[in-house]
């Protein structure tokens, strides 16, 4: 339960971090708040040769609003976003979901982009990014690119980030649309057994589900109710390919998707 040895680099400029990533690729890992990565290091599920700390880069610790787009830098801690005065008005779904991300004691150090980079299938922030159709801003030593949430997550703790890239920021659009969030876990702040987010769309509602499939999944539903809604939710629940594990059975997870899904869709379409 102790990390394997690594070199620790404290970056003072982003270029330095990018250069090391270019040279070392998958042997190097970025550490920001470390609230996911440190557990992986302690359990030796990750054994990087080099750890690059980006938390002294002030430029990354910003939440910026340009028009209707909010950009959250890689150094923004979850607690800082939660304390951002505009959060509830600008990103109400994030305001609902973020208190479920870990605990006070981990949100104090954990970053928004770090949770998205880690891509745990039951994590709230990847789920919210999917539900809101956000973008991940990736950068390597040569170029920047933006990837839509739906193209970023690639499986259980897997993403389409290349080994020489880091997440510079994530961005979300401000919408005045209704939204709802609910989660079931054994203890508040633990990994979700099932987490659901719903956002109103022009034609109905988008439902996003975490904790069931190997990455957050979304389904756009028209304005339906009653048995049509039940059937659609049932089909979605089965398509998520739930598995039995020590926390819950596949059947229980499908039940939660149907029940929470129905409540959230009703709440948003009201």
């Amino acid at each position, binding site marked *: 339960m102790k990390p394997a040895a690594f070199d620790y*680099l*404290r970056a*003072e400029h982003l270029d330095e971090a990018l250069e090391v990533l270019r040279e070392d690729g998958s042997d190097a890992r970025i550490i920001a708040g470390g609230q996911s990565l440190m557990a992986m290091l302690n359990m030796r599920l990750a054994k990087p040769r080099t750890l690059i700390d980006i938390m002294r880069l002030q430029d990354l610790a910003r939440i910026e609003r340009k028009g209707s787009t909010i950009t959250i830098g890689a150094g923004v801690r979850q*607690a800082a976003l939660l304390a951002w005065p505009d959060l509830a008005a600008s990103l109400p779904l994030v305001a609902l979901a973020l208190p479920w991300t870990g*605990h006070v*004691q981990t949100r104090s*150090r954990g970053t928004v982009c770090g949770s998205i980079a880690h891509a745990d299938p039951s994590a709230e922030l990847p789920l919210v990014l999917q539900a809101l159709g956000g973008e991940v801003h990736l950068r390597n030593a040569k170029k920047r690119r933006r990837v839509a949430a739906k193209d970023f997550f690639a499986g259980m703790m897997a993403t389409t980030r290349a080994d020489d890239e880091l997440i510079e920021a994530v961005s979300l659009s401000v919408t005045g649309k209704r939204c709802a969030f609910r989660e079931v876990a054994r203890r508040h702040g633990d990994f979700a057994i099932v987490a659901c987010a719903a956002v109103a769309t022009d034609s109905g509602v988008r439902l996003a589900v975490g904790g069931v499939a190997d990455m957050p999944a979304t389904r756009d539903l028209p304005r339906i109710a009653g048995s049509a809604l039940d059937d659609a939710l049932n089909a979605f629940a089965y398509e998520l390919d739930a598995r039995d594990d020590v926390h819950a059975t596949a059947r229980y997870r499908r039940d939660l998707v149907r029940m929470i899904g129905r409540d959230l869709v009703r709440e948003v379409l009201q």
Partner: protein
Amino acid sequence: MTRLQAGRRHDVRFTLNGKACAGEAEPRLLLTDFLRHKVGMTGTHVGCEHGVCGACTVDIDGQPARACLTLAVQIDGCEIRTVEGLAPGPGRLGVLQAAFKRNHALQCGFCTAGILMSLDTFLRAHPQADEESIRDLLSGHLCRCTGYAPIVRAALEAAAELSDQNREKTDA
């Protein structure tokens, strides 16, 4: 850029419970082990070592944080407070510690140091804390003895006492 090489010890300078402190740490050394083995402060406990149990919670720059999910080299230049900093003097207890004692809010005591540090940082920022917010805070800690009820009671008592103290100060 500063590169701290694996397998070598590097200076870490920080403030511990209000006093300047320094020690040597390899990059892979956790803050828990650094505090216990290098600094000799064994009040911070080591439980699960992956951020779940909360026994190792300390105050880093005014925020409660898991020492087991923090590297010693990351806290260079930070202000750290540990359970050793809570008592006002030898043989005396702080307000929160005294409330824990009165309410039997600990039995084996393994989780206590972490819970005290979470509550201490939280009550400093939120002296009017209610039961719901205290329970939410405690969700980041595992206690297998008390069933949490006496801990909540102690925290509420301490909160009341601390906000009374604040009031006297502002009235004076």
